[in-house]
């Protein structure tokens, strides 16, 4: 049995297991075991992947598994991973694992909560292992829809509104995406071969350029909406603000990465010619995302909003780098996805934990928390520093790879826009320090806060897992970077086959 299938089977078994449980204690235990197994599996996969590579396996995709599903349409259940998806899978495993522990005290309808959460995770895992566009799309939608329930039932604030907005905007995104995918499918075999949804097959042919011009915006924006592309990002602040902790973690940490990953793996990889032509439009949009998100975050008062806008900014950087279409920038984009996934998950976990104690997320109602909850405070500072791109944490590696890569572009326009995007690192520092300053430092504003408890063991597991991952990438980025680079090489080769012409 192919190892990748277990990424679908284990969550499904876990869901089955939760169905048998009766109360919170049992269901969270089952979830933790299931997702712990999933995390271990993810690391096993990383190990197997690396050993395959070092054994000299040069196939672009490893652990391929292919079953014909709908023969008449040539739809396959085709899975396989390269370094990029392996990295994303490891990220997902980490975030889901941390998410389970962050929702250790989910009193209200716990079984339903964990089931929905794990179904969401299943969708994400499935998305990352798919190399068939159909299954990819299926898993994509599967990942999106539990969000409604999760936010709607367990959320806070205007949760119905936010959940609805999020779901509908993402579904509208998938409307665009569907058009793009169908178009790719019907032009996947210009020379009379059977049509195919298989990404690797499609990448071998060149879709006619005029078709690409039509399909690329659909596909890119379709994925871009999930990746919080300006101006389609507004589901993100409301959605994140209303979502329960683990859902925010998973959503910002993993689900938004589906957008970046898809934009890269589908839109740009399969339609590079149109991507080259139209990149400048989206580069402008993404660099707006980057700067705009950061500026918006400065004046927010709700912790989750701050983080949501920060996610807009960081995810904008992912799409920005992907559009630069050279190896280094794309490598940076992938690292940024992983890094942002971990950081933002950590942030949301912490916000949830702080909220659980103070019952407010308004920063101006809090202050001096460092004194009473030092563990959470310190981890928050670490998350903040990681987020503003401090060396030693993953954010720095990602951002620097992106900036250096993007700046290697031959075109002056791209270099100028890189500088604009790079200016976000200052703005990021402003809002991160503002929050840290108001929230954690200074005198304690409210006497009720004097008796808060510091993190419980399950909260520590949740946060320490993420912190370890962030620092591991931040201090030893080479293995991740090399893993990604290896898999990027064939992709970039395809991209660079196209004559690049400067815009100005």
């Amino acid at each position: 049995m192919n190892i990748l299938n277990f990424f679908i089977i284990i969550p499904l078994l876990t869901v089955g297991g939760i169905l048998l449980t009766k109360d919170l204690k049992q269901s969270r235990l089952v979830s933790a075991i299931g997702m712990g197994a999933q995390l271990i599996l993810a690391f096993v996969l990383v190990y197997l992947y690396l050993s395959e590579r070092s054994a000299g396996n040069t196939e672009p995709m490893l652990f391929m598994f292919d079953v014909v599903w709908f023969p008449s349409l040539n739809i396959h259940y085709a899975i396989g991973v390269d370094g990029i998806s392996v990295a994303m899978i490891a990220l997902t495993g980490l975030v889901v694992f941390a998410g389970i522990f962050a929702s250790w005290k989910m009193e209200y309808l716990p079984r339903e909560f964990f089931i929905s959460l794990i179904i969401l995770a299943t969708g994400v895992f499935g998305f990352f292992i798919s190399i068939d566009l159909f299954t990819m799309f299926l898993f994509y939608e599967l990942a999106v829809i539990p969000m409604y329930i999760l936010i709607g039932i367990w959320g806070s604030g205007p949760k119905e509104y936010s959940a609805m907005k999020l779901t509908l905007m993402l579904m509208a995104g998938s409307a665009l995406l569907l058009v793009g995918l169908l178009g790719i499918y019907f032009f996947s075999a210009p020379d009379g071969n059977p049509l195919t949804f298989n990404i690797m097959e499609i990448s071998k042919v060149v879709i006619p350029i005029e078709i690409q011009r039509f399909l690329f915006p659909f596909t890119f924006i379709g994925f871009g909406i999930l990746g919080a592309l300006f101006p389609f990002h507004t589901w993100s602040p409301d959605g994140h603000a209303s979502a329960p902790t683990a859902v925010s973690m998973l959503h910002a940490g993993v689900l938004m990465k589906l957008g970046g990953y898809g934009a890269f793996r589908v839109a740009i990889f399969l339609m590079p010619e149109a991507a080259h032509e139209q990149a400048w439009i989206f580069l402008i949009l993404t660099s707006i995302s980057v700067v705009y998100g950061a500026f918006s975050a400065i004046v927010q008062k709700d912790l989750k909003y701050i983080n949501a806008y920060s996610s807009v900014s960081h995810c904008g950087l992912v799409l920005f780098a992907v559009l630069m279409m050279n190896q280094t920038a794309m490598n940076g984009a992938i690292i940024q996805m992983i890094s942002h996934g971990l950081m933002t998950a950590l942030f949301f976990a912490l916000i949830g934990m702080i909220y659980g104690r103070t019952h407010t997320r308004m920063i101006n109602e809090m202050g001096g928390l460092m004194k009473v909850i030092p563990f959470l405070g310190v981890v928050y500072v670490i998350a903040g520093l990681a987020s503003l791109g401090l060396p030693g944490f993953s954010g720095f590696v990602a951002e620097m790879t992106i900036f250096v890569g993007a700046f290697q572009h031959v075109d002056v326009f791209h270099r100028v826009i890189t500088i604009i995007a790079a200016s976000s690192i200052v703005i990021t520092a402003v809002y991160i320090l503002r929050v840290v300053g108001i929230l954690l430092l200074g005198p304690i504003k409210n006497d009720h806060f004097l008796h808060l408890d510091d993190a419980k063991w399950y909260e520590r597991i949740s946060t320490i897992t993420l912190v370890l991952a962030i620092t591991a990438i931040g201090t030893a980025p080479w293995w991740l970077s090399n893993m990604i680079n290896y898999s990027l090489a064939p992709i970039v080769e395809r991209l660079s086959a196209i004559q690049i012409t400067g815009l100005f």
Partner: protein
Amino acid sequence: MNFSDILIMRHELMLTVLALVVLIIDLNLHNRDKHLIIPITLALFFIHTVVGFMPSQPGILFGGMYRTNALLLMMKNILNVGVLIILLQSVTWLKKEENREKISEYFILLFTTLIGMNFMISSGDFLMFYLGLELATIPIAALAAYTHHQTKSAEAGIKLILSSALSSGILLFGISLIYGATGSIYFDSVMQHYANTPMQVLAFIFFFTGMAFKLSLVPFHLWTADVYEGAPINVTSYLSVISKGAAAFILIILMFTVFNTIAPIYNHMLYLIAVLTMTIGNLFALRQKNMKRFLAFSSIAQAGFILLGILGGNTMGMTSVIYFVLVYIFSNLGAFGVVSAISTVTGKETMDDYDGLYSTNPKLSLLMMLSLFSLAGIPPVAGFFGKFFLFASAASAGYYWLVFIAVLNATISLYYYLLVVKAMFINKNEKPLAYFKSDLATRTGLVLSGLGIFVLGFWSQIYEIINSLSFGILH
């Protein structure tokens, strides 16, 4: 023609016998034992459904008026399964005191319409088609008016019968012109002679409006909501699922065979009507509070999606339409089954009554949610596959913008489906509907539709069978 030849009409014959048997049993039962009809009929219909799946020879009867082949059999079987589920879901309602004297009427009328649909699907000429159509429509009007004492039910009946009379009048006018133009009412010879002249386009449009009426496509849909709301819930589900499914089947057969020559014209028309139907259906569904009416409009919007498959104009299109109808039957029956179960036990039919349903009736809520997701086209339930294949077939003909509009409409539809999900799962309610346990038949019906929703999508074999059969018809 000998006896064994006539057996290729197995479905129709058995149903006729079934209707007669029900009648005879009814005559021989004492008034207080009338409810015994229910299990007997269910058992008999179950046998009928199972027998229907036995392979049969393709063939032609009555000089070409009646024809049958594997694909048509499959369509009939699909309808049979749907009807079986509906019958299961109606048991509780039929057992009510007020319906005691009319139980057999319900079955007989239902079977009669099913016979009509079977004939309609198997028709080889316009005469048989017309007969089947009327046989499938007129008894439903009686069924819609089934509850004598309710004004709404009577209103539904009159609206249905008069609208359908008008529409079949127009349809007939179309047929008469077709006859005038081609000199035949047989599909095969009409197909060979059909040409793109103004008169024949006119004839086609008149004919098409009749079909559009059955499928409730905008702007020929206005009867739908009122009739659905007024009719007893199980009749509504029958109307929205079986009747519509049969109409879709015959429409796609006719479009792909008889009228294939004017496809360039009707494609434009279908495009326009598809957009209108999806959009207007959705817009009306948005603000409905009555569950039946809500599902009525949602089913109008669904009909718009079916046209996408017809627009595909190839095997894929045909397969996707049949497959979609199959999926749609199960999804809609899931939803209607829940509404019916709740309405029969509590009499509550508005969306607000569903607030907090999950806390008291979690299984019903889950089934409802899955059915609605299936209707909206959300994986992993079958509706996703159904919609995806429809869109794929439209895209195969190059209708990308139409696909885009359709998916946006699916998004809008997701909004109102989610409103129901929200009511059941999220909205707080001081006094949610009390917990109740449905009887065995209802539960079986619900479980069947729930299973269908799950199995149909992942089990690609079904799609492949339909595909190979469609391929056989079209080539």
